[in-house]
């Protein structure tokens, strides 16, 4: 039996056991989907764009967002910042703080 056949056999064995995969995948990181609302302007995973967010401290991110929420007349990001609750801001900030 060649290696290709072995691999195909293993693939089939795995494919036949979907319940197996369902119990092993860890949950996605908390806040990731919410934070992905920032990626369009700040780069995938906060890696660039207008301002790099990945690796900033959570305190700094929340401080900036709170300041933006109070600015008048609001610029685009000032208005966007008003779209999240304090709990959501904390989730977003924690997510970026944990990224490199």
């Amino acid at each position, binding site marked *: 039996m060649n*290696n*290709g056949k*072995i*691999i195909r056999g*293993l*693939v089939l*064995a*795995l494919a036949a056991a979907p*319940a*197996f*995969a*369902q*119990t*092993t*995948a*860890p*949950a*996605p990181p908390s806040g*990731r*989907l*919410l934070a*992905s*609302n920032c*990626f*369009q*302007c*700040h*780069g*995938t995973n906060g890696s*660039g*764009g*207008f301002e790099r967010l990945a690796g900033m401290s959570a305190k700094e991110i929340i401080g900036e967002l709170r300041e933006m929420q109070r600015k008048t*007349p*609001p*610029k*685009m990001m000032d*208005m*966007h*910042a*008003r*779209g*999240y609750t304090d709990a*959501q801001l904390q989730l977003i900030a924690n997510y970026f703080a944990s990224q490199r």
Partner: protein
Amino acid sequence: MVKRRDFIKWAGGAGISLTAAGWSLLAAADGKRGTATVAAGVPTGTGIKGRVVVIGGGMAGATAAKYLRYWGGTGVDVTLVERDTSYTSNIMSNLVLNGSRTVTSLQYGYGNLASRYGVKVVKGDVTAIDPVGRAVTLAGGSRLAYDRLVVAPGVDFDLLPGLETAAAQAKAPHAWKTGPQTTALRNMITAMPNGGVFVLSIPPKPYRCPPGPYERACLVADWLKRNRPGSKVIVLDANPGITAEVHSFTDAFDVVHQGVIEYHPGVAIASVDTTTMTVNTNIGNIRGNVLNLIPPHRAGKVIAANGLADAGGKWTSVDVLSYEATVAPGIHVIGDAAATTQPKAGHIANQEAKVCADAILRLLSGRLPDAAPQTNSACYSPITADTASWLTATFAYDPLTKTMQPVAASSGEAAARSKDNFEEMTKWFTALMADSFA
């Protein structure tokens, strides 16, 4: 890097059971045979596995394909089916009409999705979707099996009466899908005489990019003012009033481009005669040197052709927690083709794609989709060749109506147009396209 032979020896020798992480290693080892190539932006060992086919490589489809791999890892086999070799952005395409951008500058290839994320890009046309057998058939007969299907075909157009032939359509282009019609419309504008008339019609909601037609009226007026003095832009809007950025466009029509733009709301087009270049409407017959008529929209053909359309035959209703079609389990519809409370536009299509990708990955892991997704829409609208306004809105899931509802405090438009906004627009566009295609 572990060579395939070594991996098998190691796996066999250690007598390990194949864990989910092992699946990823296996996929990596077997990359050449096609499950998935390990690319820099794709994690191994997420424990998620499955086959996802994505139809359509626009803003929604490209983003979904990228994030299924970027978040899902090497165990998620992603195939993107697209009929064109590259995507041409509709965002910024009004800047082709005033000569400040080229169509070529708006093109984005699929090379990054393949090389960085291991997305298999297949150039082809879908002939059939088999929702029971869970497979997609392409022209030429090849069959792609899937566990989850994402359909993102964008929009198609109804025919306005009188524009049934290709010759008539060429004389009254909509240029609402960037391509040859956009270039043709630019050439028609530059061929206008002084004191000429540009007629622009806006279809009833919902249509792609709500502020887009008003933005177009502004940019064409701005160019004509400086280059074809005495010319007019007549806007025939099927809607009862300006549908987006009311403050900015009212100011643009009444003040900035005063005397150049003539705006008519509530206009119904009865027919179009391209021999006399006349639009017959409920407010009279309007003649123009250029007719730029944007027809009513519907979802891309693949939707109705495969029984995915709602009763009205135009769009697909979805569960906005996962974008799974109400009529078809396992088939997710994102972007402009989906009937939701969110606007049809590229920026929010990118976010819908992320919500959908995240939901599919959770479903493949035996979990439920995120119960409280949030999305956002944002765009800048040029008012002149160097100033712009902006529009933004955040949408949150409302469990009572099961719809995405705008968060009032975060929905609004620019207080005034500015050069700063215009500069930010370029930065926004670059970042958005990179998040979708790179």
